[in-house]
């Protein structure tokens, strides 16, 4: 092996050392500290979810078992799924690994929006605690309708307790957190790459995260809409999933799986990325087929939006839909196959080092392949009809999620722990853990294929003897406990190694990517000088001078290794890191209280809302840089575009899916209305007038921005007030329209038309209301002379939002008002 090049000794403290104290952790906005918070929380929930799994296996160990009983069993499998997906796999991959590694991989000092990052964490914690409110004795009752909570079982009529209330609200809160993380990471990866790091030079983990964030932005709104409908059904007595009003519970399945299948890839792609990072240093080879690896990620993501129906083959969608979804689903096997073969080709011809991280990586490839191949079986609808909702599906997704994602996560832990904590994880314990995990995992989940073939349905708390299921269930339960023991080893290793483990150098694995070029653990600002990237595997090339290392002596030897080959992009005399903030925590607290208010005491909503408002305003005015151009940051940005502007674009892309889901629901339910009020009630002349006003306001917004940009503060303020005023006229029209309808007797509970109309137009109205408030803040600040040319960005971003809201209205007005057709079911 080539001599380990040394790295610079920094005189700076690492990110864990300074500042100290609990308060510094509560207010931290350092992506590395937030990652630690995520990691610790997710590991805690991993223990919870693992214990739930072992209780499930204890109940199923023998037939007709009375150990746990039906009610608690149903809560256990619901919470096991929900916890592992939303509180373990996603926070570990996104919150922990991605959060820590994105800036290090792309050569940045932090993520694009550090406070938003902290806010995502505190909202995540709020949602995670909320999901577990049912543990409070006086509320009693954990969610118990399965992680995909199929309507209409989740309706108040069939689930009267708070079980589903905490689930709906908890998932809504977690959705906010994930969406904001996705937005943040998307902007970071797109716009904050170090000079020279083109898309095709990014580490594969960055490609995976880029695609994942796009999936998050475009998938979560569908879940949000589905949950909002369920919330309305449970709390406002609407009928989105009630057959008695003409609706269909299948709507939930469509909305849920339009989110749910991309969600599978939101969990899978980061693991693909981790694997791609771990496999290269331990094969001592560059990643094979890099372009195809990147394109296949994009292709998987694209296809994942067209396959949701394969979760619904048994619902009777008809032969055409079945065939279509079968074909799209099978197509996903092609890019996935490319990835697996390319990983093997990366190992092929390499010089392998079987560290624990590498072992988990190799385990991932084999187990994930097995999971993928059983997925091909389920992709064939006739075969799926024998397999869906049986244990063969449980086998399939545990091979994908545990054999795939969890092994990827464990590989990531062993690989990056030295960088994160400065100490190596113990390899001996690690290898024991790997082999026990490998055995026990296959012992637990492989026989589930047999149980599925033998017809054991999933989600049954008990089963009769003499079904041919006894032996394998017993065998699986024993192995599940062994698997639990393997995780015990893991936790012991984490704690022991963090306290007493061997100290790690900056580059313990002879790594290839930029995170290994800085000390372990890194200083708060990551890079003293932003590196200049000249090739893929940037750090490897810097060390050895070429992508491969054919006997080439290190190009740079000794202490100079950390200096980039090219000229440093920018040398900072003083590195300014943003100041910590307590507002993200207050925001999370406010959201928690508002959600709690829905359930127990309605006035809490106001207190929660006040906290949220306070934290938003606090964050807006916390820094004097509000709305200011930052020429330095702009020059450093990859696209030459301000992060805030790009973030707004990403948010609006996500909003498109939100409104598309609402509009589709309106369209689908239009023809299922059982009678009574319908679209003929709509007052087209009045609405045409407000539409005209709203469109005119967009014109005023253009004038306002132009005025501000030429530093004309007076006219800027006038046009902004004008825009806000026109917005208010529109809102007034809408208030009149709604009042008129309610007086005529059309309420949100009245029928399908009422509920879809009020939710769609109402949500648009809320967007206009937010826009008007925003415009008024801008207008008053401009009138006070605070917003001129230097801060015109504030107006520009507000304008983007405002134009988007107007465009959405044009679509709504056309589809719902102008093209109204009425047909009764």
């Amino acid at each position, binding site marked *: 092996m080539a001599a380990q090049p040394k790295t610079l000794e920094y005189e700076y403290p690492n990110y864990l050392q300074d500042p100290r104290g609990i308060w510094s952790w509560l207010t931290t906005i350092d992506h590395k500290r937030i990652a630690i918070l995520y990691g610790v929380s997710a590991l805690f929930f991993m223990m919870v979810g693992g214990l739930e799994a072992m209780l499930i296996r204890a109940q199923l160990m023998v037939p007709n078992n009375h150990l746990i009983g*039906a009610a608690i069993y*149903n809560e256990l499998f619901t919470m096991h799924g929900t916890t592992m997906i939303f509180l373990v796999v996603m926070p570990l991959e996104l919150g922990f690994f991605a959060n820590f590694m994105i800036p290090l991989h792309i050569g940045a000092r932090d993520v694009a929006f550090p406070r938003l990052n902290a806010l995502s964490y505190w909202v995540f914690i709020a949602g995670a605690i909320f999901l577990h409110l049912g543990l409070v004795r006086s509320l009693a009752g954990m969610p118990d*309708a399965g992680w995909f909570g*199929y309507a209409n079982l989740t309706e108040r009529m069939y689930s009267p307790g708070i079980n589903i209330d905490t689930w709906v609200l908890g998932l809504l809160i977690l959705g906010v957190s994930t969406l904001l993380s996705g937005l943040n990471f998307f902007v970071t990866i797109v716009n904050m790459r170090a000079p020279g790091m083109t898309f095709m030079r990014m580490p594969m983990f960055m490609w995976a995260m880029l695609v994942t964030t796009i999936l998050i932005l475009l998938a979560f709104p569908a879940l949000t809409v589905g949950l909002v409908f369920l919330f309305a059904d449970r709390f406002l007595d609407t009928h989105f999933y009630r057959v008695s009003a003409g609706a*269909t*519970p299948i709507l939930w399945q469509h909305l849920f799986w339009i989110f749910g299948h991309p969600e599978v890839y939101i969990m899978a792609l980061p693991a693909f990325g981790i694997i791609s990072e771990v496999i290269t240093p331990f*094969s001592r*080879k*560059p*990643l*094979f*087929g*890099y372009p195809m690896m990147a394109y296949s990620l994009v292709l998987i993501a694209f296809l994942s939006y067209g396959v949701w129906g394969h979760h619904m083959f048994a619902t*009777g969608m008809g*032969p055409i839909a079945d*065939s279509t979804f*079968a074909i799209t689903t*099978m*197509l996903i096997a*092609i890019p996935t*196959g*490319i990835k*697996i073969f390319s990983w*093997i080709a990366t*190992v*092929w*011809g*390499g*010089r*392998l*080092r079987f560290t624990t991280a590498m072992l988990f990586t*190799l385990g991932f*490839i084999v187990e994930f392949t*097995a999971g993928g*191949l059983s997925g*091909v*079986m389920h992709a*064939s609808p006739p*075969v799926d*009809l*024998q*397999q869906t*909702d*049986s244990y063969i599906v449980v086998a399939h997704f545990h091979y994908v999620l545990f054999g795939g994602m969890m092994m990827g996560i464990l590989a990531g832990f062993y690989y990056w722990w030295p960088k994160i904590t400065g100490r190596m994880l113990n390899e001996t314990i690690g290898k024991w853990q790997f082999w026990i995990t*490998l055995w026990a995992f296959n012992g637990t989940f*492989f*026989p589930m*294929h*047999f149980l*599925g073939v033998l*017809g054991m349905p999933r*989600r*049954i708390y008990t089963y*009769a003897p003499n079904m*041919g299921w006894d032996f*394998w269930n017993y065998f699986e339960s024993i192995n599940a406990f062994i698997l639990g023991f393997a995780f015990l080893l893991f936790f012991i290793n984490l704690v022991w190694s963090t306290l007493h483990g061997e100290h790690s150098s900056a580059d313990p694995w002879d790594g290839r990517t930029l995170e290994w070029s800085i000390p372990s653990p890194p200083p708060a600002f990551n890079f003293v000088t932003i590196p200049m990237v000249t090739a893929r595997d940037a750090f490897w090339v810097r060390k050895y001078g070429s992508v*491969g*290392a054919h*006997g*080439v002596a290190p190009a740079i030897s000794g202490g100079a290794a950390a200096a980039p080959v090219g000229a440093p992009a920018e040398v900072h005399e003083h590195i300014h890191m943003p100041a910590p903030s307590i507002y993200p925590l207050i925001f999370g607290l406010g959201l928690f209280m508002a959600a709690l208010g829905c359930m127990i005491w309605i006035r809490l909503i106001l207190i929660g809302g006040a906290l949220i408002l306070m934290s938003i305003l606090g964050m807006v005015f916390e820094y004097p840089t509000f709305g200011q151009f930052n020429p330095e940051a702009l020059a450093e940005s990859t696209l030459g575009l301000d992060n805030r502007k790009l973030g707004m674009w990403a948010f609006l892309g996500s909003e498109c899916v939100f409104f598309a889901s609402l509009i589709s629901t309106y369209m689908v339910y239009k023809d299922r209305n059982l009678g009574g009020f319908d679209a003929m009630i709509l007052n087209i002349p009045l609405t045409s007038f407000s539409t005209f006003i709203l469109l005119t306001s967009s014109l005023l917004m253009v004038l306002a921005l132009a005025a501000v940009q030429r530093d004309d503060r007076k006219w800027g303020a006038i046009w902004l007030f004008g825009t806000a005023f026109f917005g208010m006229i529109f809102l007034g029209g809408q208030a009149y329209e709604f009042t008129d309808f309610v007086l005529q007797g059309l309420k949100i509970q009245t029928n399908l038309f009422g509920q879809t109309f009020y939710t769609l137009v109402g949500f648009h109205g809320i967007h206009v209301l937010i826009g008007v408030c925003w415009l008024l803040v801008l207008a008053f600040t401009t009138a006070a002379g605070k917003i001129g040319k230097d801060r015109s960005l504030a107006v520009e971003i507000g304008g983007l939002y405002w134009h988007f809201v107007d465009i959405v209205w044009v679509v709504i007005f056309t589809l719902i008002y102008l093209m109204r057709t009425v047909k009764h079911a």
Partner: protein
Amino acid sequence: MRLADRLKRNVPALAIATFAGGALGACQPYNAPMNTLSTQSDLAKWITSLYMQVTIWDTIIMVIVLVAMVLAIFVFSSREGDPGEPSEHESDLMLELAWTVGPALILVFITVPTIRTIMKTQPTKWPADTLTVEVRAHQWWWEFDYPGLKIQTADELHLPANRVVDIKLYSEDIIHSFWVPALGGKRDVIPGQINHITVVPQVPGEYYGQCAEFCGLSHANMRFRVVVDTPEGFKQWTAAQLAPPVEPKQAAAADGEKIFKNAPCAICHQIRGISGFSPQYSYGFRGPDLTHFGSRGTLAGSILENTPENVALWIQNPDKLKPGAQMPTLGLRGKDLQDLVAYLESLK
């Protein structure tokens, strides 16, 4: 590298071989009434044939991946002190084309028979002599109506062999799923939507079924049986079901009939000529038709064999045997209970 080390690295392959052997063993139809591979209808045979084709392709790919993986691990394990650096070979157009086009071709071989099977198994027209059965799913039991024959029953579905059966699926509350592995794939039972399973049962026998979509507390206890009769046997069964309920002959059964009428049983349960379904209760509160209860092999969502002891146990505390069951505990004891059981069991 020492042989022992190599063997150690071979553990995954060994483990998988062990499991594959187990798989072969598990697929035997020994005493596994829900076995999806023991096919007793046209539908189930088509599905299994397709399943086998996909499994063969899957196995081929799994073997290729495993062999490549194990080879790579064996051949390219690090050797201490090896000065050579690995190749920096990082792309190969032909190879990459091969593993893109190859799987695509295999998918064509899977997709074509898939779509043919879909079209074959989801007909929209049925032959004239089709037997239509209406299945009504309730939380947590199955009701079977034969609209052409005017028969209503529960827990046990009788079908004639070698005749096209159109099973129409209705839900009275939430989403369930109708699944009899021996007769073919499952279909969800969805409120407000009528789904069909078209099947020709081929071999007379008794087959197990179970709800396959999670439907709340006692989802696990929503089982049923399908009895496929010979055409003659089905005729006899039909005639027996159409007959009015048996007049109680023993004194105990006659007393039991009085108890049935006077206790709340008659509100939810129909015995033709004795009690009807009470109109003030919706379908959701309907209990199984008991006109020929004694002729059935199981009760309470097929979780219990139909024996006097089990019927008594069930009446005493339904919620204990089936958590969340809507049938109330009536507090019947001693002789009353014995009489009621005797009456119910006499309803052959």
